[in-house]
């Protein structure tokens, strides 16, 4: 076997609306045709392309995020990769040992105990009995259900189920790990451990394909992202850029929505202090958030709001034009407003912007987009916590030479102990 990898080459997959056959009368001719010629790869009536000429390659050590709106074909792509579905046209190939997590507890049987299910699920994922036995303790400990391991799974909470499922997959030791939206289960602490584990797997050279609606997680975990929309690849590249594109695609589509709101958001751009669009910002650097809006009727004294959350949901900062005592008057045409942050004092990590247009009292929203614009903060600063507070260390009666002052890129002076 050659080196692990994923090849998706001009893959098409069709689905049928409604049921397959209505009667035995239809079945027999179509079965005979299928036998003689193989399945037809042309579209028949009631069929549509769920995946439309999709191509990408993933190399070992890469982590590919697949994002896109609901029904775009993301999960179909993943099912094609896991061989659950077979492409109508094209070639899709996964080389190396594959671990797939389409649904964490797919193989669990409610009447079996946790222990029995670990062995069953392990076998489903292609582990040998000896391998499972070797990692058994670790799996149970990772899932945190040591005392319930001999209880039937039907008495588990859904969180325990998901934890056990992920724990097995995480100890699978695969070359290629395919994951479909598993981070939505379990409590915050467990999700954190999942992400940690996936980081570790990736660092050890595992190829990761990750389908998610959690854009912040994609940004955090992946070094590349593919945007799929209506079965086609719309974008393939840096995750942040893919997310930007995703926002653009969906907000364009939203533009066609009924104008029940007099004013609505038409997009958000993020610039650095030189006016270039960015997705990654240095701690302490300047940042401009440009909010575009469209109006269908004059709106009296609206307010604009921006919230920043960290990837794990911590609320970092929120502000709006009302708090700034800004009176925007009556807005009667499309335009934009900028929020300028001269020094972004956030420590490295993944963050997301939520933006909204509120009424005169900044209470009722005209339009809001939550966590719509993820971005990452990078820095050489290794401080802990949420924000980078300006600080210096002062040691009485000592030579300052013992400490080496470190200037972070654009931050004010800081001194770090080494």
């Amino acid at each position, binding site marked *: 076997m050659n080196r692990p990898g994923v090849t998706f080459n001009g893959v098409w997959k069709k689905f*049928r609306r409604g049921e397959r056959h209505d009667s*035995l009368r239809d079945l027999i001719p179509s079965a005979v045709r299928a036998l003689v010629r193989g399945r037809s790869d042309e579209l028949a009536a009631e069929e549509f392309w769920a995946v439309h000429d999709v191509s990408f390659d993933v190399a070992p050590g890469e982590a590919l995020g697949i994002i896109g709106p609901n029904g775009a074909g993301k999960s179909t792509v993943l099912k094609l990769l896991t061989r*659950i579905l077979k492409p109508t046209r094209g070639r899709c190939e996964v080389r190396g040992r594959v671990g797939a997590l389409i649904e964490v507890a797919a193989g669990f049987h409610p*009447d079996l105990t946790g222990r*029995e299910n670990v062995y069953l699920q392990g*076998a489903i994922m*292609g582990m040998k009995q000896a391998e499972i036995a070797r990692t058994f303790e670790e799996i149970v400990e990772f899932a945190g259900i040591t005392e319930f391991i001999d209880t039937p799974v039907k008495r588990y909470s859904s969180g325990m189920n998901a934890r056990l499922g992920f724990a097995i997959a995480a100890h699978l030791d695969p070359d290629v790990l395919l994951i479909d939206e598993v981070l939505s289960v379990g409590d915050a602490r467990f999700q954190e451990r999942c992400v940690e584990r996936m980081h570790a797997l990736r660092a050890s050279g595992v190829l990761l394909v990750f389908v998610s609606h959690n854009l912040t997680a994609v940004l955090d975990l992946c070094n590349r992202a593919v945007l799929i929309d209506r079965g086609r690849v719309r974008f393939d590249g840096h995750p942040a850029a893919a997310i930007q594109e995703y926002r653009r695609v969906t907000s364009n589509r939203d533009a066609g929505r009924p104008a029940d709101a007099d004013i609505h958001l038409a997009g958000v751009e993020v610039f650095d202090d030189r006016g270039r669009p960015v997705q990654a910002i240095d701690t302490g650097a300047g940042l401009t958030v440009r909010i575009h809006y469209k109006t269908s009727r004059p709106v009296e004294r609206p307010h604009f709001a921006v919230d920043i959350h960290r990837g794990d949901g911590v609320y970092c900062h929120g502000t709006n034009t009302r708090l700034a005592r800004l009176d925007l008057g009556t807005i009667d045409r499309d335009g934009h407003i900028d929020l300028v942050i001269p020094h972004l004092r956030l420590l490295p990590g993944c963050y997301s912007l939520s933006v909204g247009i509120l009424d005169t009292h900044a209470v009722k929203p005209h339009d809001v987009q939550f966590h719509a614009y993820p971005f990452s903060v990078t820095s050489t600063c290794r401080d802990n916590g949420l924000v980078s507070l300006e600080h210096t260390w002062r040691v009485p009666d000592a030579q300052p030479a013992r400490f080496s002052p470190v200037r972070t890129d654009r931050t004010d002076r800081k001194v770090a102990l080494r």
Partner: protein
Amino acid sequence: MRTVSVLSARLVADVRDMVVEQREYRELLVRITARDLLLRYKQTVMGFGWAIFMPLVNTAVFSVIFTRVAPIETAVPYPLFAYCGLCTWNFFASTQRFAVVSLTSNTSLVTKVYCPREIFPFSAILVSLVDFAVASTVLVGLMAYYRIPVGWPLVFVPVIVAVHVAFTAGVALFLAMANLFYRDIKYLFEIVLAVWMFATSVVYPIERIGGRLGTLLLLNPMTPIIDAYRATLLERQLPAMGPFAAAAAVSVALLAIAWLLFHRAEFQFAENV
């Protein structure tokens, strides 16, 4: 000519696939079988006793019918005749009962995980085979009770079991696949199974039917298989070679065709559950 060579190349590739997959996933087959066995008798008091209980009760009922109500001549004591027929028929019937729903009851696995789908009907066979083994201990007991001597034709039994399993597997693959596309199969096959039992020499020798219907019933491959068990186990004779060879050929051909069809349809399963 080209079509033929393309088709045969595809056939070879498919067969290789089928064998390689089964070897790769043998662990899973064992696990799924263990799961089904465990589930079958979990929370039951009698456990494996159920594998014996059903054919025993049936034997008692048919013994009353065919020794008191409508006595018939059999080469060996009737209860022995009936139990031998019932426990071998039971293996076939209970496999089908499990196999027919094997894909539809494992929906989450069929749609969410990749594995060769043959595993589900195959595990139905293995589970029933374990029951069959348990039930045959009673047959041994009955043979001892009636002081039936055994002879060298006994060496033929593994061949009969192999043919029996092949035929059962062929039908099981067809049923599992068919029920996935048409849920009517589950109901239809219960009726067919009941009729089929009385069209096979399970509780009476099929020759007694005679006439044109009797000739038609000779086409049933289950009869030579069950008759072969009786001949080798109870009568110290070789099976009637003509009918048995025909049944064996049908079984092998059926299994080959069913498996190949199953393998080719496999990729549509996830879309049709």
